[in-house]
């Protein structure tokens, strides 16, 4: 039997069994990859390759942005930035039908854009706006669905850790270019959901009564400026060459530390070690996975698995429209069962060559793939953001899922737009001179 097919089968079968059994994903990846090359290489070459791949998969400068953005997100979460952003979002959405839910969407986009985490957005926003919505007579399932459906926008609107991971696994695609490319798709996702909310809220008669006086509005705006400044400093600094994308993450940490320690005084110095330790833990989880999955990418390249799969896909048809549709559906299925980082690490080396052969730009492919996997974070059975949103919204998965279906339809339409209209992703990076 062909080496690629044999190794592919070993990996697939072992991986599925171990994942279903509830093994840590990283270990399941490592064990199945090692077993796939043991029959080919000798024991020594196999274990050295394994150890070396883990190490070299981790010791990559651009990955440093991940712990730093996680730390910055945790500092901001604790530092009371969420509340200030909600007030600002309320000011923006005003008295539109379902204004509180619309506020939630805008706040998710703002907060997610800073913290780069869908779960952080879902928990922070859901737990603050949710109760207010209930008081105004909103159905909790309606509120939770709006919160859950839009929490992943922060993963598309930069900065975003999964884009950094993609940059690495796709062979060094510019992180700055990916960041720029995420803006429009992220906004479109948010807008599509706001449209759904508008229609639903109008039907249900959710109309806001709260109103800001001029003085209050000014105060809200002033209070939010330091938070917004963070976006300006980090993204602006990257674009104007004051620091690289990786260094931008350090700036985010330092800025949010100074803000919450000295200006808001919302974090005490002695609370810092705990914040660092929690961030280190989350880093350990993600980075170990990245390290071990680089064993798998190596084994796949070594045995020629991606080539076999892409040959198979391209042999099926050479209609670009159909192949992209197949890839999207495969990725959606993957996303329902798998978290973003491992899915990105495993499937980029498989699908990128296929799409590159079709003449697709790497940045465009990255955005399409991340968009897809973002949807996965809010679908059962494995959807971290969904779980968090359900928990803070005090609802049941079954009932909120029914409400979510219409959002899925809207998001899926945006996905198709992102897939088939490259300009949605490439316009902004092109404007900045990255493409």
């Amino acid at each position, binding site marked *: 039997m062909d080496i690629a097919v044999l190794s592919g089968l070993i990996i697939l079968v072992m991986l599925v069994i171990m994942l279903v059994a509830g093994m840590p994903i990283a270990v399941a990846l490592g064990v199945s990859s090692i077993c796939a090359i043991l029959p080919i290489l000798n024991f020594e070459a196999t274990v050295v390759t394994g150890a070396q791949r883990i190490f070299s998969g981790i010791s990559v400068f651009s990955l440093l942005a991940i712990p730093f953005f996680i730390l910055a997100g945790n500092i901001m979460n604790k530092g009371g930035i969420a509340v200030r952003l909600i007030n600002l979002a309320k000011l923006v959405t005003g008295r539109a039908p379902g204004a509180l839910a619309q506020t939630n969407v805008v706040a998710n986009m703002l907060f997610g854009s800073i913290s780069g985490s869908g779960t952080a957005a879902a928990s922070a926003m859901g737990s603050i706006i949710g109760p207010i919505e209930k008081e105004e007579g909103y159905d909790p399932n309606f509120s939770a669905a709006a919160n859950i459906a839009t929490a992943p926008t922060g993963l598309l609107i930069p900065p975003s850790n999964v884009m950094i991971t993609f940059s690495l696994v796709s062979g060094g695609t510019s992180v700055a270019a990916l960041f720029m490319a995420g803006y429009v798709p992220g906004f479109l996702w948010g807008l599509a959901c706001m449209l759904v909310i508008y229609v639903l809220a109008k039907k249900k008669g959710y109309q806001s009564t709260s109103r800001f006086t001029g003085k209050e509005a000014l105060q809200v705006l002033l209070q939010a400026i330091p938070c917004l400044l963070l976006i300006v400093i980090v993204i602006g600094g990257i674009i104007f060459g004051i620091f690289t994308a990786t260094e931008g993450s350090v700036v985010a940490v330092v800025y949010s530390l100074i803000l919450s320690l000295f200006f808001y005084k919302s974090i005490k110095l002695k609370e810092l070690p705990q914040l660092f330790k929690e961030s280190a833990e989350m880093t*350990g989880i993600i980075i170990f996975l990245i390290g071990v999955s680089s064993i798998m990418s190596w084994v796949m390249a070594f045995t020629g698995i991606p080539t076999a799969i892409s040959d198979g896909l391209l042999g099926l048809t050479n209609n670009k429209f159909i192949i992209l549709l197949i890839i999207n559906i495969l990725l959606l299925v993957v996303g329902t069962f798998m978290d973003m980082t491992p899915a990105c690490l495993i499937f980029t080396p498989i699908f990128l060559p296929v799409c590159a052969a079709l003449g697709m730009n790497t940045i465009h492919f990255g955005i399409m793939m991340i968009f897809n996997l973002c949807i996965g974070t809010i679908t059962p059975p494995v959807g971290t953001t969904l779980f968090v949103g359900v928990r803070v919204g005090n609802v049941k998965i079954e009932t909120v899922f029914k409400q979510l279906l219409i959002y899925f339809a809207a998001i899926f339409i945006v996905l198709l737009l992102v897939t088939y209209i490259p300009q949605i992703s490439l316009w902004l990076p092109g404007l900045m001179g990255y493409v």
Partner: protein
Amino acid sequence: MKALNTLRKGMDRILSSACFVIFAFMVCIGTYQIVVRYFFNSPSTVSEELLTYSFTWMALLSSAYVFGKRDHMRMGFLADKLTGQKRLALEVAIEVLILAFAVIVLIFGGIRIMDLTMTQVTASLGIPMGTVYTVVPLSGVLIVVYTVINIIDLCAGRIEPGDTEETQE
């Protein structure tokens, strides 16, 4: 039994403190790198490598710590439905596989790669590459100790089989 608990707590404390120290160090070096290049026009020739390797150490040590807490990302949608003896057997089997992976890849492979690279020096710091690689077998040993304690605790009923959190991103 009490000794085991003390061992686990001690390792936890040492590891999480080590991660805090390295992480804080990384923030300082990262800031230093930007400041000296942008404001003093003298780029640091060592900071990038120092940052990368500190980060690698921090990430591997903290991932060992997370193995102790049994908190690595997993898919529980089927496994969590099992209960009782079956669940216990499954969880013990998982710990055994983690242990095997740590021994074979991280410890065996890690020590061999250290041997291979002791004469190599890193590009800008000039320290032996083998020294930098030490963290691989080190984290392997830590994971082995944690999994052994986990297995004993699981069998003695001191930790519930389902006592693993669904991790958030």
